[in-house]
């Protein structure tokens, strides 16, 4: 089994006044796991549902391996889907759930059962075939839903926030498992999520969506280290915004001169976007900066540092926590590397919100 190439071309979709998709272009390579990431209402779920066939785009096309499937009914598409939750048929046993697609296609019972058993073994739950959905935990249900989505050997797998209803611990193990399965099957996978950590840890590439448009698509490391826009920078990971003075392609911030990367705004008063881990904090009794709060996270500690009327976050190694207790005077520097800048009021609603995407 190998994955198909999926292309979204100029997808546009309006829901009575609100624009869910505004000309979305995206190509997903065969066998790739791509995460669609964005805040609620950015259109990521709508895009996925266009691929599944539950939504029809007003304009644009969905292509799979070059052929246009935009108008193909959902039940004739070659894409398995896992829903957010509660999608297992409550009246059917787990085995019948997994074999549902085969039954609809009139595959003989023995063959069906064998295939269902094979899939249950694949997801690591070989003994639950006779049980019913309400007897399973949330994590088990989602695994079964995954098995059901894979039963017809689709060439595209669609995951609509499949982990968002689960406990934090189950979420982490299950995402590793999904990734392992996806790699071994080589199936093209589109994964919708609002959780940036999930997207970064699982995906080959992450596509950040904003208001129905593609903001940036890149592999996780690039996305994190070299966000193309301020929106991406703030949505993915945590960012400090520190005022700076721009001159040419150099910005002066906290007394340091750093090269600027990406777009340069027209004004010279800018805000410099800095990740907490690129803020260096060293104890210095003569400095005016002071640590307000320190929250220990094991391998690191996150500090909230006050500098004049500015507050910023800094991540330091966990073993430094003792000498960097709240109240300590510190000197603050930035790692010498290119930074992103933005005009002061550029990014308003870019804060990642851990909510379910409604659309």
């Amino acid at each position, binding site marked *: 089994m190998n994955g*198909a190439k999926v292309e979204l071309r100029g997808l546009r979709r309006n829901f009575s006044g609100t624009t869910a998709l505004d000309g979305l272009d995206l190509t997903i390579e065969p066998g790739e796991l791509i995460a669609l990431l964005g805040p609620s209402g950015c259109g990521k779920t709508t895009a996925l549902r266009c691929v599944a066939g539950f939504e*029809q785009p007003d304009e644009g096309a969905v292509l*799979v*391996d070059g*052929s*246009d*499937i935009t*108008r*193909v*009914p959902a039940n*004739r*598409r*070659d894409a398995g889907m896992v829903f957010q939750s509660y999608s297992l048929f409550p009246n059917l046993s787990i085995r019948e759930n997994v074999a549902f*697609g*085969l039954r609809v*296609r*009139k*595959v003989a019972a023995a063959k069906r059962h064998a*295939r269902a058993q094979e899939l249950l073994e694949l997801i690591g739950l070989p003994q639950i075939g006779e049980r019913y959905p309400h007897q399973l935990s949330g994590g088990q249900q989602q695994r079964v839903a995954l098995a059901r989505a894979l*039963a*017809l*050997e689709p*060439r595209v797998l669609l995951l609509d926030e499949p982990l968002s209803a689960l406990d934090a611990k189950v979420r982490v193990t299950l995402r590793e498992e999904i990734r392992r399965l996806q790699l071994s099957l080589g199936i093209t996978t589109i994964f919708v999520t609002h959780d940036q950590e999930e997207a970064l840890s699982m995906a080959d590439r992450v596509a950040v969506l904003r208001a129905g448009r593609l903001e940036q698509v890149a592999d996780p490391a690039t996305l994190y280290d070299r966000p193309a826009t301020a929106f991406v920078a703030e949505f993915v990971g945590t960012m400090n915004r520190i005022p700076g003075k721009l001159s040419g392609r150099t910005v002066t911030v906290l007394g340091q001169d750093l090269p600027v990367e990406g777009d340069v705004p027209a004004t010279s008063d800018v805000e410099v976007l800095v990740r907490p881990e690129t803020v260096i904090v060293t104890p210095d009794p003569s400095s005016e900066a002071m640590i307000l709060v320190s929250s220990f996270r094991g391998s690191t500690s996150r500090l909230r540092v006050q500098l004049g009327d500015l507050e910023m976050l800094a991540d330091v190694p966990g073993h430094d926590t003792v000498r960097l207790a709240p109240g300590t005077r510190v000197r603050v520097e930035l790692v010498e590397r290119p930074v992103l800048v933005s005009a002061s009021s550029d990014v308003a609603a870019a804060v990642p919100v851990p909510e379910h995407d409604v659309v």
Partner: protein
Amino acid sequence: MAALTPAGPMAPMTPPAIAAEPGGKAGRPRRIRVWRGVVLLVAAVYFLVPLIASFTFTVKDSSKGFTLDAYGQILSAEGFGKSLLLSLGLGVATIVVVLLLTLPAMLAVRLGLPKLKPILEILCTLPLVVPPITFVAGITTILQWGPDHLADTPFFQTIIAAQNPDFPVVLVLAYVILALPFVYRALDAGLGALDARTLVEAARNLGASWPHLLFRVIVPNLRSALASASFLTLALVLGEFTIASLLHYQTFPVWIYTISGSQAQVSVAVSVFSLLITWLLLLALSSAGARQRSGS
């Protein structure tokens, strides 16, 4: 579904030509809309025509064409006030008795005797299985048999008193039984939503006495369940014909039946009227429930 290959699970991604027609998608919702429209239209005709026709029946007049006389005659018709008052009185008495019986028992079971719950549930559901006419067959037999065999005992007086035509207690007793299943369900739902145990324990912990607790804590929080139980009971009593007529009491429905022979228009007018009253009661009830929900 001809395009699906039954031989194997691998379905072709390329669509058959018919599926790709742009009109294919738009056609389905339209068909559903038409289907739904037909269903709703037929239902509207079936449910509205008798109401409209009944009203027309009561206001048409061979000489004048239109008249509201029938409604005017309701009030002056002989026995109207008396039978309506009797039915209302029976309704109120039934509500009081049934609530006094069920509420303490159900609270007690919920708070301290969960083992009794299935028994209570079965007892309160059983009357659904017994049609009122069979129930009245049993009662009639007792009422006939009693005077013959109990003439010398105090029971005799009790049985006679229970059959007082001005206020037949025997009907209240029967109606309490008929109302039990509905009252039980309404209160059970209300108590379930209330988490009575926590509420009672919190109140006891704050030093509330039992009567205080019952009337200041439980009852106000159960208002909507009590209202719905009361409404169902009242509607049941106001409409009950079988038992009252076979025991020969002139309750409101029996009265309507009695006058229908001589005053057909008036009897239909009263029927329309009684439906309106039910409707108003239900609206009042649902808005009271909504108010409570938004209030809390």
